[in-house]
């Protein structure tokens, strides 16, 4: 049984979706380039914008990307 909080999550999950051109695998192959562009404050290419759009749509890739950025910050500090 979905309670109000879960219904709200479902509605947000539905309302926030946008068309997505790429798959999870394609996204994860390109996250090194996306991260370097974002951390270097460089404008995103069209392909990297598609990767960012996929991350905005896919909660699993979004969490994985967040974890990746944490790891990159750690190795950059050395």
């Amino acid at each position, binding site marked *: *049984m*979905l*309670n*109000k909080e*879960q*219904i*709200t*999550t*479902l*509605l*947000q*999950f*539905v*309302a*926030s*979706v946008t*068309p*997505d051109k790429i*798959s*999870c*695998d394609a996204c*994860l192959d390109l*996250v*090194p*380039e996306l*991260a*370097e562009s974002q951390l270097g404050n460089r404008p995103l290419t069209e392909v990297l914008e598609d990767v960012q759009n996929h991350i905005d*749509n*896919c*909660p*699993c890739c979004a*969490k*994985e990307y967040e*974890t*990746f950025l*944490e*790891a*990159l*910050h*750690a*190795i*950059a*500090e*050395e």
Partner: protein
Amino acid sequence: MVESEAQTDEWVLRLRDTQLQGAALQELRKVLLRGLSRAFNGKGGGESFCEDVAQDTLIRILEKLDQFSGRSKFTTWAMSIAVRIGTSQFRRKMFKDVSINSLGDEENMKFEFADEDQVSPEDLEDRRSIVETLRSLIETSLTDKQKQATQAILGGMPVEEIASRTDSNRNAVYKLIHDARMRLKQGLESSGYSAEDVLSAFA
């Protein structure tokens, strides 16, 4: 540590050279462990978990070295592989005892709508109407597989875990769920509820 292009090339050369490979792997292992520890320690992935992931990553990197295109720094690419392996193993560990059926049975998809917020009767009526439209769209527009996968992801199960339990793959399950979301969104819009209406009604 900011890696230059020359350092990126050097990593690849050293890993391909049988005489230099051992030292390069040891050095790379330290880099990976630093990143993995930061990324997974706070989430419950301890030292031995990170050690295992680093080891698996080094093997994978040697297998995939020819696929490194140089479009990013070598350590960034290596770290992305480590995080992918670590995330996958971590998710498998977290969800090993969770059945997809426990997240995706018919009972779970029923709606219990007891609004406790202090909202006006008009806003409450809007919410009820949106939820009823959504419930009806789920029943009429989604396939059984889409219902099950959508429920499972709402229950917190990652896409790759849904895939492993349904003899599918991450890309296919993501597409299944994405198509379901698009269909529900379009259905809501056809019923007069834009994304903004929905988000503001439940803000």
